[in-house]
C-alpha cells in the first residue's frame, strides 16, 4: 500500500512539473497561435543560469536569475524574431522557433559539455517519511510549487486585465485588437511567462532523484509536448494541461 | 415554402426550415425559400441577418441543426463541401478567398478540379492522359478568363491584383467549375460604379450562356433590383419577406428591418446611387464591354 502511495505521489509530482512546461507552451500557443519548439531551449537556459550562479549567489537568488534569464530570453525571441517575421503561415513561424531552438540548444549543450550540473537546491536527497510512506522532499517541493503556480496562473487568467486580454486574443485576435487589446503586449507577456515557468520546471526536472542538469535535459523537456497536445487544443481554464 | 415538387429534378434549389445555431446563438431560424431553375434569386437583409451563414450551409462549410436543402432532386444537407461541389454547386466568397501566391490561371484551374482526374501519379509522371486533360482545361479556363475580363492577369499571382480584379477572378473561378448552381456572396462589395455594372453584365450573360441558377447575397439594392427575379429577405435569422423585387421593396416588414438597423442610411444612399447606375447600364449594356 505504501509503495502504491509513493508511486502516486511521485507520479503526480512529475506530472505537475511537466504541466508547468506544457502550460508555458500552451500559453504561447493560445496567445499567438505559434507552436514554440524553442520551449525546451528556454528551459535549458533557465536551468543553466541557475546552475552556474548558485555557488556565488545562493540558491534563491540564482533561481531568480535563472527565471529572469529564461523570461528575458523568451521576450527577446518574441521581440527580435516573431514580431518581425511577417508570415501568414503558422507552420513557418513554428519552424522559426526551431531555428532559435537549434542555436540556443547547441550553444548551451556545448557549454554544459559532458558535465552534470547541480542547481544547488536546498532539499538535496532528503526523504520525508510519514505513516510509512517515504517521499523525497524535492518531489513535495515540486508538487507544491507547481500547484501554486498553476493556480495563480488560472486565477490571473480569469480575473486580471491581462488574463482577459489574453483570452480575447486567443478567441479572436483581430476583434480583440479592434477592442483595444494590445496584441503585442499580450504576446510579449506570454513569451516571458512561458520562459519563467520553464525555468522553474528546469529546477524540478533536475533535482533528486535526477542527477542534475545535463545535455539531455532539453530532450526530457520535450516529453512534456504530448501533455501540451492533450491540453493545448482547448483554452487552459476548460481543461488543465496537468491532466 | 412548399414549392419543392415544382423545382425538383432540374437545377432548382429548395431550402426548408433551415436552422443553424452557434453556441446558443440562433443564426438561422427555420428559413425556407425556393429558387426556380434558371433564375437569379437574391438573399438580402441587414448585417448579421444570416445570409452568409445560409451560404455556408448551402456549400457545406457549416452544418445545419435542422432543416433540409435540396438541389436538383438530391439532398445537400450533411454532405461535405467537396461532395456538394461535385454536384455542380459553386460559390464565391465575400472576403476574397483566392490562393494569393498562385497565378490567376492556377486559381482558375482549381475550379476545374471537380471536372478533372489527374492524381499524384499521373501528374507526377506527366502521363499523356494528364497532359491532354491539362491542355484541354487550360483552353477552357482562358476562355472563361476572357469572358469575365481577367485574361490580362492570367500569369500574375492572384494576391498582387487590385481588389476589383480579384473579385472578378473569384467569379471566374466559380464559373470554371461549370456550375449549375452559382452562389454569389456580395460579388460587387467595395467596387465602384463601373465595376459593378460590368459585374452585373457578366453574371447575367453567364446565366444565359451557361444555363445556371444563381443565388445572390448582396447589400447593393440597385444590383439586386437589376439582377434578381425573386428576393428573399432575412432579418435576425428569420425570413421576413419573399417575392418579386418590386413587391419586396415596398413590404412594410422589410422597410422596418432596414430602417430599424444601422443599415438605414446606407440603403437610402445606395438606392439613389443605384438609380443612377441602372440608368448608366441601360445605355452601356448594349454597347458591350470588352471581355
Amino acid at each position, binding site marked *: 500500500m505504501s509503495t502504491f502511495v509513493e508511486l502516486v505521489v511521485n507520479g503526480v509530482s512529475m506530472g505537475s512539473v511537466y504541466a508547468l512546461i506544457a502550460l508555458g507552451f500552451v500559453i504561447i500557443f493560445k496567445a499567438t497561435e505559434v507552436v514554440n519548439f524553442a520551449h525546451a531551449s528556454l528551459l535549458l537556459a533557465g536551468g543553466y543560469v541557475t546552475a552556474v550562479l548558485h555557488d556565488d549567489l545562493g540558491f534563491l537568488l540564482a533561481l531568480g536569475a535563472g527565471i529572469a534569464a529564461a523570461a528575458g530570453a523568451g521576450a527577446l525571441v518574441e521581440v527580435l*524574431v516573431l514580431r518581425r517575421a511577417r508570415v501568414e503561415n503558422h507552420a513557418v513561424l513554428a519552424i522559426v522557433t526551431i531555428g532559435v531552438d537549434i*542555436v540556443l540548444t547547441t550553444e548551451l549543450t556545448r557549454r554544459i559539455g559532458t558535465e552534470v550540473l547541480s542547481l544547488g537546491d536546498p532539499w538535496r536527497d532528503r526523504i520525508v517519511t510519514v505513516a510509512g510512506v517515504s517521499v523525497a522532499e524535492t518531489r513535495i517541493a515540486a508538487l507544491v510549487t507547481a500547484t501554486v503556480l498553476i493556480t495563480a496562473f488560472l486565477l490571473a487568467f480569469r480575473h486580471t486585465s491581462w488574463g482577459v486580454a489574453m483570452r480575447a486574443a486567443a478567441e479572436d485576435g483581430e476583434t480583440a485588437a479592434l477592442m483595444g487589446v494590445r496584441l503585442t503586449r499580450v504576446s510579449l507577456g506570454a513569451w516571458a511567462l512561458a520562459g519563467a515557468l520553464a525555468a522553474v520546471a528546469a529546477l524540478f526536472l533536475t533535482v533528486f532523484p535526477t542527477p542534475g542538469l545535463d545535455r539531455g535535459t532539453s530532450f526530457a523537456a*520535450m516529453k512534456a509536448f504530448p501533455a501540451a497536445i492533450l491540453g493545448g487544443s482547448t483554452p487552459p481554464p476548460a481543461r488543465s494541461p496537468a491532466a | 415554402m412548399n414549392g419543392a415538387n415544382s423545382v425538383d429534378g432540374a437545377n432548382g434549389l429548395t431550402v426548408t426550415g433551415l436552422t443553424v445555431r452557434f453556441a446558443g446563438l440562433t443564426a438561422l431560424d427555420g428559413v425556407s425559400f425556393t429558387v426556380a431553375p434558371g433564375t437569379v434569386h437574391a438573399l438580402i437583409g441587414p448585417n448579421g441577418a444570416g445570409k452568409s451563414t445560409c451560404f455556408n450551409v448551402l456549400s457545406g462549410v457549416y452544418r445545419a441543426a435542422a432543416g433540409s436543402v435540396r438541389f436538383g432532386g438530391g439532398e445537400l444537407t450533411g454532405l461535405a*463541401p467537396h461532395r456538394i461541389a461535385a454536384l455542380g454547386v459553386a460559390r464565391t466568397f465575400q472576403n476574397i478567398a*483566392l490562393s*494569393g501566391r498562385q497565378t490567376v490561371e492556377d486559381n482558375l484551374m482549381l475550379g476545374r478540379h471537380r471536372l478533372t482526374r489527374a492524381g499524384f501519379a499521373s501528374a507526377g509522371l506527366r502521363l499523356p492522359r494528364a497532359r491532354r486533360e491539362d491542355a484541354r482545361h487550360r483552353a477552357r479556363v482562358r476562355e472563361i478568363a476572357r469572358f469575365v475580363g481577367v*485574361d490580362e492577369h492570367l500569369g500574375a499571382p492572384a494576391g498582387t491584383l487590385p481588389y476589383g480584379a480579384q473579385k472578378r477572378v473569384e467569379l471566374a473561378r466559380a464559373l470554371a*467549375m461549370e456550375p449549375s448552381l452559382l452562389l454569389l456572396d456580395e460579388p460587387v462589395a467595395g467596387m465602384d460604379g463601373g465595376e459593378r455594372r460590368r459585374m452585373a453584365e457578366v453574371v447575367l450573360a453567364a446565366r444565359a450562356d451557361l444555363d445556371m441558377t444563381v443565388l445572390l447575397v448582396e447589400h447593393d439594392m440597385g444590383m439586386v433590383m437589376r439582377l434578381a427575379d425573386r428576393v428573399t429577405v432575412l432579418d435576425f435569422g428569420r425570413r421576413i419577406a419573399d417575392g418579386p423585387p418590386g413587391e419586396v421593396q415596398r413590404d412594410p416588414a422589410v422597410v422596418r428591418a432596414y430602417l430599424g438597423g444601422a443599415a438605414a442610411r446606407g440603403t437610402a444612399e445606395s438606392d439613389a446611387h443605384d438609380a443612377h447606375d441602372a440608368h448608366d447600364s441601360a445605355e452601356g449594356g448594349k454597347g458591350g464591354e*470588352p471581355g
Partner: protein
Amino acid sequence: MSDPSPPPDGAPGRAPDRAPGRARTGTPGRAAALAQPLAGLRRPAVLAGAAGFLVLLALPFYLGAFWLQTGLFAMSAAIGAIGLNLLTGATGQLSMGHAFFLAVGAYGYVYLASDSGPHLAGLGLPTPLAFLGAIVLAGAAGGLFSPIAGRLRGTYLGIASLALIFIGQHVLFNAGSLTGGFNGRDVPPLRLPGLAFDDSPGLVLFDVPLGALERLWFLGLALLVPAAWTARGVLRGRPGRALNTIRDREVAAAVMGVPVARYRAGVFVLSSMYAGAAGALLALVFRRTVPEYFGMFLSLDYLAMIVIGGLGTAAGAVAGAVFVSALPQLLTRYGDDLPLVAAPGSGGVSPAEASRILYGAAVVAVVLFLPGGLLGLWSRLRAAATPRRGPRRPVPRLDEEEQPA
C-alpha cells in the same frame, strides 16, 4: 513559373516579345513567361539543366572520397527534403515525424535485404527489391498515420507527429532483432545484375577505378533526378494546385471540390515515401544504420532545409539540402583556417556545433529577411541582372508578403 502563354487574341502590343532571338535570352521569370512561346522559354533552362547534369555525372571522376560522401549525403537529404517540401512547403502541414520515415526506409531496406541470422532477422530479398520494398514500407507507415495527418491542420499535425519520433526511437533501441538495438545493423550493399554498389574491384571507366562511393554517386543521381522531376510534376499539376490552395485557403479548396482530408493524407503518404527512399539511400552510403541518428534533430534539420532553400518547390528543397548537408562538412574540412571554430573536444566551438548554430541562425534570417529562401534569392538576383524588357502590361505592384511558392 513556366505557365504557357495566353492565346494570342486580345493581346495587342505583345508581338515584339515573340521575336525568336529575344525570346531565347529572355527572363524565364513570371512576366516574361507570359508572353513568350513555350519553346523559347524552356530552351535555355533545358540547356542549363543538361549542362549541370553532365557536370554532376563527371564529378566522381575528379572528386575524392570526402566530397563524394558529402555529395551523397546531400543527394539523400535532397530526396527527403523534396518529400517534406511537398507536405510542409506546398500544403502547409508541419511534420516533425520526417526522421521516423527516414528510419523506416533505412531499417526497412536492411531488414528486407539482410539474410536472417542467429540474432538479427531479415528476409534476404534481392537488394533492388528490398530498396523498392523500403519505399513501400515507408509509404505504408505514412498510410497508417494518415488518418491523423488528414484531419489535423498545419501546426497541430506538427505537434502530433512528434509522437512518431518518440515511438521511432523507442522501437529502434528496443526491437533488437529487427534493428540491432543500440549498435544498429550493417547495411548489405545494393546489387544490380552485373553491378554491385560496393568496393569490389574490376569496374574501371576512363582509367578511373570506380569504388563504392563513385558507384553510389550514380545511383544517387538516378534516384534524385526522377524524384525531383516527379515532385515538380505533382506540384505544377492538378494535385499541386489543390495542395497549395489547402495551404492558402482551406475552405475555398473544399468548396471548389477538393477533398481536403484525402489530399492531406495522400501528400503525407507521398512525403513518407520520399523519406523512405532518402533513408534507404542514406543507409547504403553509411553502410551501417544507427538509431540515435534518426531522432528529433534529424527532423529539425529537414525543416531547416526547406525553409532555407525555399518552401514549396523541389528546387528549393534541393538547394536547402545541399546547404545544410554541406555546411558541417565544409566547416570540418576548413575549420582550422576559420576563427572561432576549434577542434572537437578542445572546449571551443566544434565544426559540427558551429554548423548547427549557423544554420539555425540561417533559418531565422531567411524567414526574417529572405522570404523565398535561397531559391527566392537566386530568382531575385537573376531578375535584377536581366534588363527589364517585360511586356507592357498592367503588372500589379509586388505584394510584400508574396513568397514564390
